[in-house]
Every structure is written in structure tokens, then in C-alpha cells.
């Protein structure tokens, strides 16, 4: 075991320039099987990483990404139990027999769950934590804390309570804590999965800057788009490397990526659909490639000045066409999803009775205001209505009032002003049961409601509370489990299901009460691409059956592909309420709300039209090809 003194010395030595070994990280024939499982999590992994290289690792949940990352600082096999074989070297030094904590100064690791890696009561102490643990002298710690905070853009935050930071700030703080140790390698394991778009952008901007400083970086993700800047990409499936190479060579293998549960960049999808065999790292590049490869009629496709695309919907005949396509596309998408095995979404049926509905809105907020006692207003005179069969996305930054508005609709909060009507009746006059039959609410984290010992019991909990007959309950449970594709796990313990399955279970246990309106708070957060598709396919199917949908989300692609109406909120007010197409043309509003339109929308704009999905884009382009 290393005495503390050498730990500190080696931490300093790794930062000096006279480094002998060429490789920062080497894995030779690394395999690992977790205790109690039969399938290996990693199989014969071979990776070499040069110093200063940035490598991206892609794959679905359970592909082995995190296990691979844990091999680099001995969490596998020193912490996780199981069977390990192979050799891992960091800067030429084999890790055999070392402890995780011995490596803390060599390999810095940032985890997805930012709450689980914060240990201190203020930011400076958080950054100092690891340095204190390895016994670094106080003066040295003091000299490193502030620069580390500056490096991640958190200068002046030293005294702040970490709980008051945003998700993005918390992750940057975690990165600062790692940077302060001056490690040889930094591993970021899905650092942005739980963040809103703003936080995501902050973290990736920081990662790019770190890369510029010559740090060796390993970034794990399940969305390919963010990893374009990597030197090399690695795709994992079932614990094996199935593709490896520079981003252009990996990102153009769309089928492979999708089959591995990775969200391929939309630009690559567009190019592939148009038959252009090339990689585009940016919207500009994609435009150049398309213009170079396809003979387009110039009259319609003069380059649109980017940035001020505020033309109205009526002015552009293509928009209405694109919207029509949208609906069709959504249906095809979910069918496609079913084919790919994302989720069995076709053939869903629910015995709802009459969902056709009258003209009375399902839910309506009139001049709704809300504030916590002694707090600032959270909602200010909000007017909002949802008609039968709608599919609405509520977007806006964290703290803009999205969830507060949604919670008012189900009666979790009582307005301080205005009122809420459900199917024309004042909410306060309704019993909990009546509300539950009208509106269902699925919380962001499915684990906030799961407690029963089997999936079936979990779903039956609601109807049982409302005193339904056993027969009726059994019928409803069976029907709903079929709808969310959980029939085959009905007797399993819900805690042992995957995150995607637990999310579907949460939907089922609300759906079983047969609400005519379903509100879902960030239903795809923390899910990988495959699970996100499965979830959205399910929601889309429910909508087609006539259930009105309201989703609160941060994901632009999801809004673009699935929603028909968008409500944008900021500081307790609704700033925009209208069709999706019109929404993505509100450049000013989008920018102010840090809501980035999908890349394909930006690309379409360069060709002077509007599109939200690759399919839309391609169909418009095809229609305009010189025959």
C-alpha cells in the first residue's frame, strides 16, 4: 500500500511534462461478470488511449459502458463483486492489487447521479473533499480550490450551499472536484443524462474546453450527437466493442447505432435517407453536402438567412404540408419502433367507453395564480385549456412553473388565485376519485410511487383504493399491462425492473384508472434512446386511442416528433401557446429559453423551409428535386 506521501507526489508527477509512457489508458483482454449473473458485462475488451485523446463510448443501458468506466479506477473489480480477468494500465502502471482510493488522484470520475456524489455543505469543501482524503496539506488544497472552480466557470461560488445549485452547476462542481486533483485521465459517465438542456450545454462546453487543454477524456453517452468532437468513438453492445473509429466512420453506420440503442445524429440520418454517403459534423457541412450532391431547383431553395427565420406560418406553403406529413410520420414511427423491437406498441386497445368527448375542455386553468406562503409568485394569471385528444408539450427552463401548472390540474396544489375546471366543473367540487378518472399524473421519477411486491399489485393499488370490484380490477390490470407491454413480468418485483420498465409501470398504474387526460412529467429522463422510443411510442398510441396527453419535457426532438401543440413557460407565465411548427420558428423565444431547435430544423431553414424530423425534411427535399 502506498504511504500518503507518495500519493501526493505521484499526483503532481502525472501532471509534469516528461512522461515516458505513450498510452494514458490500456485495457487488455478485460472481462467481467457480476456476481449472481451469468452473462458477462464485459467480454475481452481491448482499448488503448493515447495521452490527450478524447474518446466517446456509446451504447444502450446495460451494454457495459459503466462497467468499462469502473475498470479504469478499480471500482471493478475492487468494489463490485464478480469475476474479473485481464489487465488495466494507467500511464503504463498496472492496477492489479490497488485500491480504488489509491487511484483517486490518477483517474477522476464524474458520475451521472449528481446527488450521489455531493458530500459537503459548501462548494469549496466539495472541491477540497478528495484532496483532504488523500492527506494533501492545507496550503496546497487552498491553492487548488479556486483555480479549479474558475476552470469550470464557478468562480465566486465557493461559499454556496451545493443544494442551491442547478443540476448543470452541480455537475460542473463535480468536475472541478476531479480537476483539482490533476488526474491523468477523466472519465465522465453519462454526465448530462439527468440535466436540462441548459445544464447539458454547460457541461459539454466545459468538456470541449478541457479537451483543448490536452486532458485525456473518456465520455460515456447514449446520444451520438454530443460526441462529434471526440477523436474516437467506441460502440458497445452486450459487453463487446462492436464498432470503433473516428466519428465520421462510426456515425454513418446508422443501422448499427440504432440496433445498439444509440440515438444517431439526425444530420446523418438525413444524409443517409438522401443517399449521400458522407458524414456531416455540423448543419453547415450537411447543407454543403446536400447542395453538392443533389440538383435542387434554386427558385425555392435560396439559402435562407439563418437566425431571423421569423416568417409566419401562412407565408410558407411548405409548412402546412410538413405538418400534415408530421401526423402520418408519427404513426409510421411508432410502427417502425415496433418492428425494431423497441416496444410492442401496435394493437393497443383500452376499453374506455366514449372518449370522443364534447366541446367542453378536459381541463382548463382560468387566471391561475400560485405562490408558496411568503414566496414569490410561481404562476401568474395563467390561462390554459386542453381539449379531448390533444397532444401538448409544456416546455421551459427549470423553475418556470411547468410542474406547478400541471400539479394544479390534478389538485395537488391549491391556487392562490383563479380556478381550475375539469370537464367544466370546478376542481374543488370534485372528489379525489372523480379527479383520478378525469386526469392522471405520472411523476418524473417512477420510484416515487412504486412500493408493492409485484407488478400486478402495484397496478391494482389505485383501483383498490377506489373500491372497485375484484373482477373489474383484474380486467383492468390485465388490459393495462398488455397496453404497456409488461404482461410477461406481471408477477415480478417491480424494484428489479429496468428504469424503462418502471417508467411504463408508473404509466400503467395511473392509466388503470382510465383518465381522459394523462399528464407526464419528463417521462423520458434517465432513459436510454431505445427506452425513450418505447415510452414515446406508448404515449403516442394512447393518444391515438383518444387519451389527451400533456408532457413536460426538455427534449426538443421529442417535442418535434410527437407533440402537436407546445406551451412555453417562463417565470410563471405562458409565453407561447400554439402549434409545434410555429413554435420552432420563434427564434427569439427559443433562444431566451435555452431551447435549441432540432438540427434538422436548422438545416431545413437553410433551404428556406420548415421541417421538424428527418423524414419531413427528406420528403420536402425529394419533392423539390429536379426530376
Amino acid at each position, binding site marked *: 500500500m502506498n504511504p500518503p506521501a507518495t500519493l501526493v507526489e505521484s499526483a503532481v508527477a502525472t501532471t509534469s511534462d516528461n512522461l515516458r509512457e505513450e498510452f494514458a489508458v490500456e485495457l487488455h483482454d478485460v472481462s467481467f461478470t457480476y456476481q449472481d449473473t451469468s452473462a458477462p458485462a464485459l467480454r475481452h475488451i481491448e482499448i488503448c488511449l493515447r495521452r490527450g485523446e478524447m474518446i466517446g463510448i456509446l451504447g444502450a443501458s446495460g451494454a457495459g459502458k459503466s462497467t468499462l468506466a469502473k475498470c479504469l479506477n478499480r471500482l471493478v473489480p475492487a468494489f463490485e463483486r464478480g469475476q474479473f480477468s485481464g489487465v488495466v494500465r494507467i500511464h503504463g502502471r498496472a492496477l492489479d492489487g490497488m*485500491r480504488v482510493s489509491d487511484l483517486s488522484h490518477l483517474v477522476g470520475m464524474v458520475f451521472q447521479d449528481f446527488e450521489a456524489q455531493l458530500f459537503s455543505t459548501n462548494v469549496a*469543501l466539495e472541491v477540497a*473533499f478528495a484532496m483532504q482524503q488523500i492527506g494533501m496539506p492545507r496550503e496546497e488544497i487552498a491553492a487548488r480550490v479556486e483555480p479549479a472552480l474558475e476552470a469550470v466557470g464557478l468562480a465566486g461560488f465557493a461559499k454556496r450551499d451545493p*443544494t442551491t445549485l442547478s443540476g448543470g452547476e452541480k455537475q460542473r462542481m463535480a468536475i472541478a*472536484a476531479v480537476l483539482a486533483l490533476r488526474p491523468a485521465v477523466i472519465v465522465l459517465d453519462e454526465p448530462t443524462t439527468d440535466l436540462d438542456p441548459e445544464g447539458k450545454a454547460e457541461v459539454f462546453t466545459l468538456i470541449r474546453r478541457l479537451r483543448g487543454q490536452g486532458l485525456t477524456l473518456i465520455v460515456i453517452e447514449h446520444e451520438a450527437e454530443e460526441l462529434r468532437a471526440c477523436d474516437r468513438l467506441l460502440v458497445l453492445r452486450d459487453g463487446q466493442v462492436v464498432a470503433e473509429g473516428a466519428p465520421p466512420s462510426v456515425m454513418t453506420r446508422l443501422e448499427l447505432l440504432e440496433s445498439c440503442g444509440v440515438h444517431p445524429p439526425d444530420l446523418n440520418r438525413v444524409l443517409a435517407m438522401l443517399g449521400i454517403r458522407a458524414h456531416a459534423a455540423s448543419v453547415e457541412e450537411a447543407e454543403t453536402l446536400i447542395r453538392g450532391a443533389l440538383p435542387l431547383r434554386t427558385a425555392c431553395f435560396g439559402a435562407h438567412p439563418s437566425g431571423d427565420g421569423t416568417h409566419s406560418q401562412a407565408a410558407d406553403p411548405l409548412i402546412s404540408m410538413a405538418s400534415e406529413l408530421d401526423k402520418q410520420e408519427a404513426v409510421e414511427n411508432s410502427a417502425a419502433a415496433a418492428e425494431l423491437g423497441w416496444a410492442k406498441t401496435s394493437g393497443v386497445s383500452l376499453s374506455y367507453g366514449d372518449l370522443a368527448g364534447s366541446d367542453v375542455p378536459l381541463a382548463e386553468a382560468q387566471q391561475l395564480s400560485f405562490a408558496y406562503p411568503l414566496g414569490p409568485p410561481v404562476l401568474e394569471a395563467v390561462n390554459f385549456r386542453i381539449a379531448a385528444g390533444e397532444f401538448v408539450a409544456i416546455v421551459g427552463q427549470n423553475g418556470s412553473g411547468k410542474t406547478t401548472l400541471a400539479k394544479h390540474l390534478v389538485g395537488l396544489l391549491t391556487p392562490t388565485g383563479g380556478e381550475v375546471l375539469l370537464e367544466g366543473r370546478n376542481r374543488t367540487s370534485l372528489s379525489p376519485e372523480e379527479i383520478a378518472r378525469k386526469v392522471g399524473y405520472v411523476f418524473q421519477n417512477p420510484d416515487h410511487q412504486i412500493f408493492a411486491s409485484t407488478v400486478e399489485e402495484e397496478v391494482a393499488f389505485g383501483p383498490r383504493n377506489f373500491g372497485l370490484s375484484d373482477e373489474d380490477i383484474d380486467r383492468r390490470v390485465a388490459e393495462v399491462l398488455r397496453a404497456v407491454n409488461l404482461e410477461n413480468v406481471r408477477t415480478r418485483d417491480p424494484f428489479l425492473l429496468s428504469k424503462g420498465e418502471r417508467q411504463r409501470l408508473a404509466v400503467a398504474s395511473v392509466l388503470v384508472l382510465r383518465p381522459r387526460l394523462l399528464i407526464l412529467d419528463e417521462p423520458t429522463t434517465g432513459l436510454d434512446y431505445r427506452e425513450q422510443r418505447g415510452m414515446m411510442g406508448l404515449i403516442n398510441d394512447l393518444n391515438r386511442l383518444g387519451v389527451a396527453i400533456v408532457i413536460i419535457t426538455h427534449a426538443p426532438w421529442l417535442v418535434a416528433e410527437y407533440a402537436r401543440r407546445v406551451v412555453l413557460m417562463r417565470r410563471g407565465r405562458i409565453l407561447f401557446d400554439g402549434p409545434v411548427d410555429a413554435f420552432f420558428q420563434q427564434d427569439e423565444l427559443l433562444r431566451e429559453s435555452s431551447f435549441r431547435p432540432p438540427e434538422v430544423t436548422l438545416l431545413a431553414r437553410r433551404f428556406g423551409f420548415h421541417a421538424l424530423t428527418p423524414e419531413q425534411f427528406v420528403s420536402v427535399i425529394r419533392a423539390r428535386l429536379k426530376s
Partner: protein
Amino acid sequence: MQTSLYLDRGTWVHRLHPAVKLFGLFIMFWSVFWVDHPLALLPVALLMVLLAHESHSWPNFYAFRWFLILMIPPTMLEWMAVYRAGVPVVNLWFIQLSRPALLFGFGRGLKLALLLSSSILFLSTTTIEEFTASLVTFRMPHRVAFAMSLAFRLVPLFMDSALTVVQAQTLRGYNFNRGNLLERMKRYVPAVIPVFMGALRRANNMAMALEARGFGLDIAPTSFIEYRLVATDIVALIALVTIGIAYFMIYYFGFATIAPG
């Protein structure tokens, strides 16, 4: 959600060395221990008022006002039930009401209220890291101190998630407030289990994050924050020791005893 009573006012009371503040808390406990007569408790009460004023801690005292007042009567009754001295004025079932018994009971009630006040004062002026640092000064092992401060950080997080769970189950038609006390207690199970399991899902992640950041080395960690004793601390220490001795003297020489008559 509020994690602690700490009020960031930056007064000289706040700036005292955390170990001095902890010692001050001890001296308050020590002082009131030796006396029973309400009059003898008056100086401590006055000191409390002065410090509350100096440290701008009134909001917390205001928040606790009913608690402070309401804890006196039951404490009086508890003690008067067993206090047998003086001539009973009234004989109520098991309580003998006499002048000394009243004085004695009120003294003990006041004592408890003062103890609570001193802890409110301490918590209003001391952050969690100062508190744990002061415990380490008094030989509390580092890891126990660490566990304490981390648990403090997690409490509001868990309370938040408990609140969300309650909301989620309410929407599924669950009524938490049905039945008698026992029944109600049982009905909290669907709220407790998700919070419990949510915490456990984190257990491995937290342990990994700790190990990854050097927790697990068998060396004593260094401390980044340094608290130095300054002149104010020395003055405060002397004052506290004097108060402590004075109260012991009051007891030793038998002042402020309650005359059985």
C-alpha cells in the same frame, strides 16, 4: 426545504470559534444544572436575550415561541407530581399544590425552556461544517463527523421525496388520514417504502463516488478549513468559565435554594 436553523448574519457571535460555541452551549447546560430557583435562572435568561439580540436570531425564537411557552406547564406538572415539600394549599389528585412546589416546578420548566433557547441560539449561529469541525476538535472521529454532515445534507432531499411520494399515492386514491392513530401509522407504509428504496438505490453509487474520491485510504484526512482562536474567542472563553464557576458557587454555598415553607 430548510436544512437547519442557521441564519447567515455574520455577527461576532457567528464568528466565534466553533469549539468556543460548543463550549458555550455546554456552559449553559452546566450552569442551569446547579440551580432550581427561577430567580437564579434569571441571569442565564438575560444572557440569552442579549445574545439573541446580538446575533440577530429573533426569527428562530419567534418560530419556536409556542414550543418554548408550552413546554413549561407540562414540565411543572411532571415535577409537582413528585415534589413533596411545604404546606399543601390545594390537593389535586396526585399533585400537591404548595408554594415551594410551584416554584420548583416552574424553575424546572424554565430550565428546559432555557436549554432549548441556548440550542436555538447555537444552531442559529453555527453551520453544519462548523458543528462537525468542533466535534472533531473534541476528539470525535473524522468518519463519524463526516457521516453526520452528509446525513444532514440528505435529510431535506429525503423529505422532498417523501412529500412527492405522498402526493403520488394520494393521486392513486390513497388516503393517508383514515382511521385511528394505529391505522394512520400503518397507512404510512406506502409512503415510507418508496423513500427507503429510493435511498437504497443510491447506496452503491454513493459508496463508489466516495471511493473514487479517496475515501477509504487509511490515513487521517487533512482539513481544508482552519478555525483559529482569536482575541474575541479568548474573552468569550474567560467569560464562559466565569459563569460556570459562579453557578457552581451558587449551588455550593446553598444560595437560591427553595425554602420548604
